[in-house]
């Protein structure tokens, strides 16, 4: 999508090279390199803050730090709640704190994963970002939540699965690092929805058949004609609103959307692998994180999962992991295979 610039300057250029660019003759590159160096300094400052508020040293226990941007677009903002402290009385702060905890618990209790990097990385979030800011995102090192505009969107911490969705982007970054475009990007988005939904189901003690399989329920105000941002069970049906438009997600490869918008449709075509997961989980029944959730997690951390994987490659890996964990003729392996067939990814 970003044809004219490199989106990975911070990730791939070493500081010495950035410093050379910062001293070079191209004014824009010079300015960008300075910005990047400042951002890196900011990252290090955040790392410094994290040292003051260290990573978790005990497996099974999170280290959470919630900040408030106080309406500005500055990260991480003022720290307002740290691990072990009681409720602040600010709903956004407390929802973020408990949401990070619920996410940590799912990954720990179901998969024995100790935070985003499996090494206890501190979980950092900023709330009250910007004015009427209607979005939540993962910036590569922390979660960021806006308060919503109150017209269409409520505050973004209101939905536990959205908090877990953003954190899962952090897990993916530490594992397969799926490229954020086209099918690999849609897998990145789908995995974030899958584990976002699993966190919600785990927190509620729900079995697969009891779950709503909605992503972001509660985010819309009463003015919006819609249930949620996405439906994993019925992609394309989450909303149909005069302002927002109609949910564009397909649920089958026959309806795959070729587009340059949305980084090549990452939030659009994710409906297809989302539905595959939901079909497999509900056909098996029981807690979804124990059966097909385990297979998806094994695939997320599978070293064979390439950055540029497409749906077919991901599906084959889930089949292989289902067979490896539960047996080639197990109910789980059959459910996974049938789910991918149902959405047209496998023949």
């Amino acid at each position: 999508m970003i044809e004219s610039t490199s989106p990975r300057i911070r990730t791939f250029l070493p500081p010495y090279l950035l410093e050379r660019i910062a001293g070079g003759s191209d004014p824009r590159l010079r300015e960008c390199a300075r910005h990047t160096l400042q951002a890196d300094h900011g990252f290090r400052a955040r790392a410094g803050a994290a040292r003051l508020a260290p990573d978790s040293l005990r497996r099974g226990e999170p280290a959470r730090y919630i900040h408030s941007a106080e309406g500005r677009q500055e990260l991480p903002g003022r720290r307002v709640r740290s691990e072990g402290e009681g409720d602040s009385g600010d709903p956004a702060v407390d929802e973020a704190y408990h949401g990070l905890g619920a996410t940590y618990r799912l990954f720990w209790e179901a998969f024995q994963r100790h935070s985003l990097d499996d090494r206890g990385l501190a979980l950092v979030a900023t709330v009250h970002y910007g004015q009427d800011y209607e979005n939540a995102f993962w910036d590569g090192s922390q979660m960021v939540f806006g308060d919503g505009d109150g017209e269409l969107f409520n505050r973004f911490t209101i939905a536990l699965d959205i908090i877990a969705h953003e954190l899962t982007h952090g897990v993916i970054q530490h594992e397969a690092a799926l490229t954020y475009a086209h099918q690999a990007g849609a897998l990145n988005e789908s995995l974030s929805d899958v584990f976002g939904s699993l966190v919600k189901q785990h927190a509620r003690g729900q079995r697969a058949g009891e779950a709503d399989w909605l992503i972001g329920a509660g985010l819309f105000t009463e003015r919006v004609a819609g249930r949620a941002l996405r439906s994993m069970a019925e992609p394309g049906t989450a909303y149909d609103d005069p302002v927002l438009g109609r949910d564009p997600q397909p649920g089958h490869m026959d309806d795959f959307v070729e587009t340059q918008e949305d980084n090549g449709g990452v939030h659009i075509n994710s409906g297809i692998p989302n539905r595959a997961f939901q079909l497999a989980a509900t056909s098996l029944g029981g807690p979804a994180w124990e059966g097909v959730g385990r297979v998806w997690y094994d695939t997320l951390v599978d070293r064979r999962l390439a950055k540029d994987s497409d749906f077919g490659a991901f599906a084959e890996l889930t089949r292989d992991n289902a067979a490896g964990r539960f047996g080639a003729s197990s109910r789980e392996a059959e459910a996974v295979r049938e789910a991918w067939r149902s959405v047209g990814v496998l023949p």
Partner: protein
Amino acid sequence: MTRPAAPPTLVPASVLRLSREGGVAHFPGLARPRRIHCARYSEAQRGELQRLLATAARACPVEAGADRRLLHLSLEDDRGAEVWTLTIAEEAVPPALLDWWRHAESEG
């Protein structure tokens, strides 16, 4: 890295298309391109828009992460041909340019 060109000089026949994409979900209604017909604005307003586009063109590349929102800009000449494009992270967009986006005409 290649450097995006500075925006061409805006003339009354220029049309700027703006679309705000991305975020935690894709909403077709919000992402629908909007248009600014330069002929409808004074020379002083075109000058202000020119300055904002130049500032946007000097903004930095989109950084790492997921669910970030982006602003895609494209400039069309009097024959409707695209003569300049730019995609930048919303955080890097001059706030006054976002105001132009808010008030621009939707393509319906």
